[in-house]
């Protein structure tokens, strides 16, 4: 075995070459992730990392490798998206790929999430032959539609949610098509900054192509192809090994979205996991029918939510399509988890996805209680405030995102103020928000008492209160778990539900849909108060260590009376 020259193409791949190529492909994707974030303009990408990058199969679009720094919710969506592009090219409905081309697409029904998640896809050629696809997704801060930012709580069809693009070539042979760009920029808000993001998103794919070509030069296309096939088979085997360790059986769980934002009734996600041997089947067919409001989930997002839930349980399994092979997700036709045109979908990536992952946790915690936590807060906590600042004489749209408590688990109490299940993005500092927007935070605190009781309690949510200082604004909310708190498991209690309150002088109102609303009028001096969910408790509260109860009381997490009520003891 020679370590410094590539093995002959004919030789079976040895363990080392395989491992080295796997690490190399991963590295290509990681570098795309970093390049995209560091040069992007939108804080939602640059700071919140709401983006992902990957490599996809030239024939099927199947995921070959994906960046480790990408937003978890995109873990499985882009392979669907690439698959649709390939299909449309085959049907003559999208242009034939040529070197230097980059397609842009954000159609949710073509393997997407919501319209704000814009995908760029680049065909990569070796010796004139298509070798693979690179694709990335970036969350644009606006894509047109009835509300700034795109999260309309009341939309009833996708056209109200913004501009929808089928796969078209934004770059043709390396040159940006100014006409297509003009169409896009005249249909979105704050268009002047998008050119910076478009350049960043395209540049990330170029970085990926350059690094991938280094691998091609080193190992040859044929060896890489063989390695990719083997890596996929090995990942599938790795996932099967994890699944084998789960007891065979049928595990049922349900979770609820508060409402669709239009009709004030809960949406039910009913999941049946059938585990047999080394496969798992996920059946959502008993879930609620399609809804009028924007809480429908396209199938790609439904699948991706299952994948990310499973990946949270088995974090060491590498991400590629092989890892998903042993997982069968039945297409939940006729439910809100298989949205068809023109159902509105803006809430699917941020909120419904987290309820789907929660259902996966709640089903599998029954089978493998050591590996799965009680339900986490599971909401992105989106609060948007748009208005006009009379001092700066400029319009603004402020986004506040907050975390919540994680579920207790076999090892420890849940984490406090953890990030949403599908995200990795940080909350903006209060000091930054107050610099940019005419607001003053009156508090930003740990939400006492919110963690669900259990042997291991849930983590705590956040309690904040923000006042509008001048002018007028409109407030919108896309949150969840307002109707029911995150469920406890194995005897643990539920975490506290999400609460939104609007204080106008002495009057306090609560949004009709609890966690979702839009366009609420806010005047100077009015305050918005938000309490995010605590995590679910894990195990019988009676089994909690007395010292832990006493510590929690001493820290003021619970009053002595609350401890008495929840645990029957004060420590």
């Amino acid at each position, binding site marked *: *075995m*020679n*370590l410094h020259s590539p093995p002959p193409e004919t030789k079976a791949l*040895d*363990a*080392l070459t*395989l*491992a*080295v190529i*796997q690490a*190399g492909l*991963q590295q290509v994707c*990681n*570098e795309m992730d970093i*390049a995209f*974030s*560091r040069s992007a*303009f*939108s*804080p939602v990408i*640059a700071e919140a990392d709401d983006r992902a990058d990957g490599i996809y199969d030239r024939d099927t679009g199947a995921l070959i490798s994906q960046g480790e720094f990408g937003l*978890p919710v995109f873990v499985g969506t882009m392979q669907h998206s690439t698959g649709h592009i390939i299909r449309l090219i085959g049907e003559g409905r999208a242009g034939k790929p040529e070197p230097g081309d980059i397609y842009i697409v954000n159609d949710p029904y073509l393997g997407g999430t919501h319209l704000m998640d814009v995908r760029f896809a680049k065909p990569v050629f070796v010796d004139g032959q298509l070798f693979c696809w690179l694709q990335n997704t970036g969350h644009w801060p606006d894509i047109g539609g009835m509300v700034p930012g795109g999260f309309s709580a009341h939309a009833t069809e996708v056209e109200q949610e913004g501009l929808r693009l089928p796969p078209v070539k934004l770059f043709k042979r390396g040159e940006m098509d100014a006409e297509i760009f003009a169409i896009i920029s005249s249909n979105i808000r704050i268009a*002047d*900054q998008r*050119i*910076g993001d478009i*350049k*960043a998103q395209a540049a990330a794919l170029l970085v990926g192509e350059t690094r991938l070509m280094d691998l091609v030069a080193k190992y040859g296309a044929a060896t890489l192809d063989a390695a990719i096939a083997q890596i996929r088979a*090995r990942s599938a*085997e*790795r996932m099967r090994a*994890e699944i084998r360790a789960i007891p065979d059986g049928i595990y049922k769980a349900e979770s609820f979205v508060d409402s669709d934002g239009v009709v004030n009734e809960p949406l039910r996600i009913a999941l049946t996991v059938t585990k047999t041997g080394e496969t798992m089947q996920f059946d959502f067919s008993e879930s609620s029918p399609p809804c009028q409001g924007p809480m429908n989930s396209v199938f790609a997002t439904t699948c991706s939510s299952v994948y*990310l839930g499973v*990946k949270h349980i088995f*974090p060491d399994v590498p991400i590629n399509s092989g890892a998903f092979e042993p997982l069968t997700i039945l297409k939940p036709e006729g439910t809100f988890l298989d949205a068809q045109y023109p159902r509105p979908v803006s809430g699917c990536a941020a909120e419904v996805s987290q309820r789907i992952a929660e259902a996966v946790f709640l089903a599998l915690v029954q089978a493998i209680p050591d590996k799965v936590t009680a339900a986490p807060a599971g909401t992105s906590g989106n609060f948007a405030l748009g208005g006009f600042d009379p001092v700066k004489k400029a319009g603004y749209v402020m986004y506040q995102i*907050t975390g919540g408590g*994680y579920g207790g*688990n076999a090892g420890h109490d849940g*984490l*406090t*103020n953890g990030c*949403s*299940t599908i995200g*990795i*993005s940080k*909350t903006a*500092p*209060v*000091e930054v928000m*107050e*610099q940019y927007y005419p607001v003053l935070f*009156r*508090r*930003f*605190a*740990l939400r006492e008492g919110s963690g669900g009781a259990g042997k291991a309690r849930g983590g705590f949510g956040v309690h904040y*209160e923000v006042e509008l200082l001048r002018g007028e604004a409109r407030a919108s909310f896309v949150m969840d778990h307002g109707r029911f708190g995150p469920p406890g498991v194995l005897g643990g209690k539920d975490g506290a539900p999400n609460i939104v309150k609007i204080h106008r002088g002495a009057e306090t109102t609560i949004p009709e849909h609890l966690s979702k609303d839009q366009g609420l009028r806010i005047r100077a001096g009015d305050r918005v108060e938000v309490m995010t969910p605590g995590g679910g408790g894990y195990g019988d509260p009676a089994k909690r260590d007395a010292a832990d109860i006493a510590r929690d009381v001493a*820290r*003021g*997490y619970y009053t002595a009376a609350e401890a008495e009520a929840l645990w029957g003891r004060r420590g």
Partner: protein
Amino acid sequence: MRRVAGIDVGGTFTDLLLTEQDGTGVAVKLAKVPTSIANQAVGVVKAIEAAGASPADLDLIIHGTTATTNAVLERKVAKVGLITTEGFRDILELGRRTRPRAYGMTGTFEPLIERPCRREVAERMNAQGDVVTPLDEAAVKREAEALVAAGCEAVVIHFLHSYANAAHEIRAGEIVRSVWPNAYVTLGHELLSEYREYERGTTASVNAAVQPILDRYVQHLQGDLSAKGFRRDLLVMNGNGGTVPATLVAREAAKTVMSGPASGVMAAAATLSQSGLTNAITYDMGGTSTDVALIHGGVPEVSAELTIDYGLPIHLPMVDVRTVGAGGGSIASVNTAGMLQVGPHSAGSEPGPICYGRGGTRPTITDANLILGRLDPDRLTAVQSKVSLDDIRAIFEGDLATPLGMSVEEVAAAVIRLGNVHMSGAIRMVSLSRGYDPRDFVLFAFGGAGPLHAVALARELGIPEVLVPARPGLTNALGCLVADLRQDRVNTVNKPLDQVDMDEVKRLMTAQRDSALAVVEEEKAEIEETVVIHGADMQFRGQTHLIRVPLASPDVTREDIQAAFEKAYFHRFQVRLPEIRAVLVNLVTSVIGRRRAFPLSSLLASADRKASAAEAVMGERQVHADGRWWPAKVYARDALPIGASVTGPAVIQQIDATTVIEPGATATVDAIGNLRVKV
């Protein structure tokens, strides 16, 4: 005769380099003794004595310590109280909604200040620094007394927007000191006058939590040293790569956290400059982790966004050392998919690799080096009870070779190669992600295991040259001797450049320079030259990531700043954005007191050098490389003459490290005793 000692206390060993300078030249002495865990001062005195010196003979001691780093990581810190803005006492506990790993909904976090000791008082500034709510002075007094009663030893005063107006923090500090005379009062804005309340508050809490620890340690050390007759100055290393007088170090104790890795990088920078080089990636591989940093244009990269542990960012300018969780103890395994895997688990130093004989039973990178003859089993330093090579081979056979269908040698080589692949990925992330091409750098290899892997790693990275310094195992101690005195200042401006008041820029930069100069010049006896570096952190409007741009002086014009920013941005991202406005976020000033150049050529005694490379040969052993066994000559590093060349395969051994020269590579001893390897 002037005697100066650089002493670095690491996790395992305390290293010392002692220079003795008189009219005729410089002599260097060294010592390596086990670190005394309970009280590091004991090991320090032992190291001085091991070098055949006495504290009474020394004119200056420059000291690097891990006392504060360990205290934070192990949470063995002082009990600290917090007085903060009403409504915000939980900022330190909430963080900014994260989790430790992207996947896995688990994890825990304990802030350094426990909740009952976090107290609120009425007061509020807005983002412009105007008072919204006046300071409730009676409440400050009441809460300070409560914290004393609770047994707190240090206190942090941290108010929102204090970077914009510090009046309330300053006044609260006066009140606290009046009712509680206390050397350990940290005002949030003093360490870091930058927005972001969580990061600024956490930085302050780290400072307060280690202040009493560091103060006691330094006093202890000075006591032990003066009991042995030491009467002169003691300087302590900071994470910014500079040193501060021991009497002042506790005031900004947080700056000593992460000082160990920084001193290694400072040694590398000094070595490069004397070797006529300017760009290096430093590679310090130890048992459990590897530290990587980047030196460009002779200057180590500095970052103000390092994180010491999950949830504990320290936003102070420090040498940007990135730690990769892979080292000699990284464990190799075959995973459930039947693929070879190296890391992320590590055998650490306890139980350590199999060959240490401390109960380790899983194959590691160090063990693979032994199997392949790259390490000499008779010269391992950390061995408790000797394990035979056959036993190690048997474990590799059973755990790896048989399941993978490879020979033991093949699998050991694969373990090393895969470890290098992961390492090269991590190195690319710190170099390429900042717009640098690794091919423009040399790989500066040190630490116990760095030189062992450096040549192969450089090939993996496409780096053309490896530099192994004279004393790879004593680099941190050398860093103490070459480190400059250094003071950094940061102020937030955060305005579009075209709206910035340039008089204000001038005033801020001048004040930064003057306050930093005042501290540096307290030590002017040690300084040959004082350098002032100004810069700005900038971004395009709408962006959140910052780029550091050098500025010539406080008299800089708006146009100068715009031009410097555009140039730096293009270098990093290869994109020009004339349509978007530039924003000036922070002004930064560093004052560096440069010490006299250290005579690196004296690190290896010239008396030990033979006349030719052939005479430096200690023996020959079989080394496995490129898929086969080779007879490789083993050279004594100390005996190689200046200018000698050694062609691989070869092994160069010295007391503190082993360098492997891969087949096809050539090592040359340069004029000051470095090994320069063309890979």
